[in-house]
């Protein structure tokens, strides 16, 4: 299926665009495995080099020799390695981490880090960490929306929030009465709901903005 798509992408610009979009995860993974770190944003130079290498690989690919992924992996890896060598030869005075620090500071990441650090401390008081949230956060997007919506509502209720900070747990019975939620749902996702309530109550604006897609979707639904 891939070789056919690569063949089509070679001759048809629209198919090429679709083909490249489909292979973005592949580019991310390949570039990341060469550099040994995650691509930080879409503007990452290595990521751009990887995309360009994928485009070139489509042109140079001969389906009779190998699978497209095998061929493209070699092309992307070689391009990224060449780029990194050239960067090293330039001999910048600033180290990679210095550059990263500067970039992150510019984009307001210091505030982000402060917010995350403060949020982490709050979670510790409740007896769990982000690592625990991996296992208890709702897997299905609809459940997440429902939990986030409930967390937002709880954050707007002063009595509930007072109880939460005092008792370090959700006032489950109160929540069921006030917001007409099922007991099972509240119990099942109580840590996640509690975290969302704290995010909105403490007004962690950057984190709120980060999960804005879900909130906005939620708002559209309610309109």
């Amino acid at each position, binding site marked *: 299926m891939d070789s056919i798509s690569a063949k089509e992408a070679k001759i048809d610009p629209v198919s090429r665009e679709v083909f490249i979009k489909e292979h973005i995860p592949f580019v991310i993974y390949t570039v990341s495995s060469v550099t040994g770190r*995650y*691509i930080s944003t879409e503007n990452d130079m290595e990521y751009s080099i990887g995309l360009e290498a994928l485009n070139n690989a489509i042109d140079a690919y001969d389906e009779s020799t190998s699978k497209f992924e095998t061929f493209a992996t070699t092309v992307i890896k070689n391009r990224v390695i060449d780029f990194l060598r050239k960067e090293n030869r330039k001999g910048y005075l600033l180290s*990679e981490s210095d550059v990263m620090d500067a970039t992150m500071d510019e984009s307001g990441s210091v505030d982000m880090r402060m917010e995350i650090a403060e949020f982490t401390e709050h979670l510790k008081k409740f007896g769990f960490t982000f690592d625990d949230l991996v296992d208890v956060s709702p897997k299905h997007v609809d459940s997440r929306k429902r939990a986030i919506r409930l967390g937002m509502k709880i954050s707007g209720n002063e009595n509930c929030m007072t109880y939460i900070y005092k008792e370090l747990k959700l006032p489950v019975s109160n929540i069921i009465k006030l917001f007409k939620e099922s007991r099972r749902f509240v119990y099942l996702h109580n840590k996640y709901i509690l975290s969302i309530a704290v995010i909105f109550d403490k007004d962690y604006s950057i984190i709120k903005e*980060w999960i804005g897609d879900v909130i906005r979707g939620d708002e559209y639904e309610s309109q």
Partner: protein
Amino acid sequence: MRANKGKIMEILDSHAVVMTSDGHFNRIKRKESMRIGADVLYTSNDLMEKPYLKKSWFFNFKTQVAVAMFVVLALVISQITMPVAYAVVSLDINPSLEITVDESRKVVSINPINTEADELLEAYVINENKDLHAVINDLIKLSNAMGYLTSENHNVILATAMIDSKNSKSDSIEFMSEILSAIEETEYTFDFTLVSTAREAGDLKSAKSEGLSLGRYAMDKENFMPPGQMKKLEETEETEAVEQETEPQNEEEKTTLPPGQEKKVEENKNTDNEKPLPPGQVIKEQNKPSKFVITEKKATQPNDNNGNGKNKGGGKGN
């Protein structure tokens, strides 16, 4: 393969936790240059689903309490069910070994003290009842069968001590007398000399600290020499002149008697000469009163079933 974008919320030793823009949390493999708050692009290949056993499980309070309770329970059960060591009997023939028994005279353990004892115990299968008296008799018989107990090396040195120092020496003496009666009642096909001593708990500790069996330690302490060894020592130390002085004695007796029985026969001559003892009957003699008791155990003759003294003067030595 799917691509995701997430913010790094927590960085741990083996992985990091990211929050996606739709509020989901993921664990991803840890890589270089990760920073809290940084946006990262990752694929489904980077995800770690149930990747590890949480390190903290052992340090969890509930687990600690459960483990502690289990350990305490195990200790209590072991204390209840484990036999309690009551006394020690040392048996020296060379092999030298120590037998620990509980109050009901069941053997708790047998501790070899030298390599000969290792060999002996390797060949010995302990009886089902683990009865002390049976074990002692078995070990003496096995020592004879394996060639440790011979007509030249005929001494079996037995020493007893109670483990708890609160138990008096009289308990130790009583315990030894039980063992001697059990040996007396047992039929043997060979002769041997039994040297026995009942000791105190303190001697047991001292013997252990010196790496000796209780019997050997007692002999060293009291400077006691078993009959056969005494004679051997005399033979090697005395000059020819001394030997010539002793020659005028009855030569017939000297050649027929086994070493160590000389003194007893002399006594028998003087006191009880007309009544030779039947085989199997025990002659008791105290070398040093209250310290060591020397007992001659004679072989039981096959035709002397009742021990009624019909074959008077019988036994291998004669």
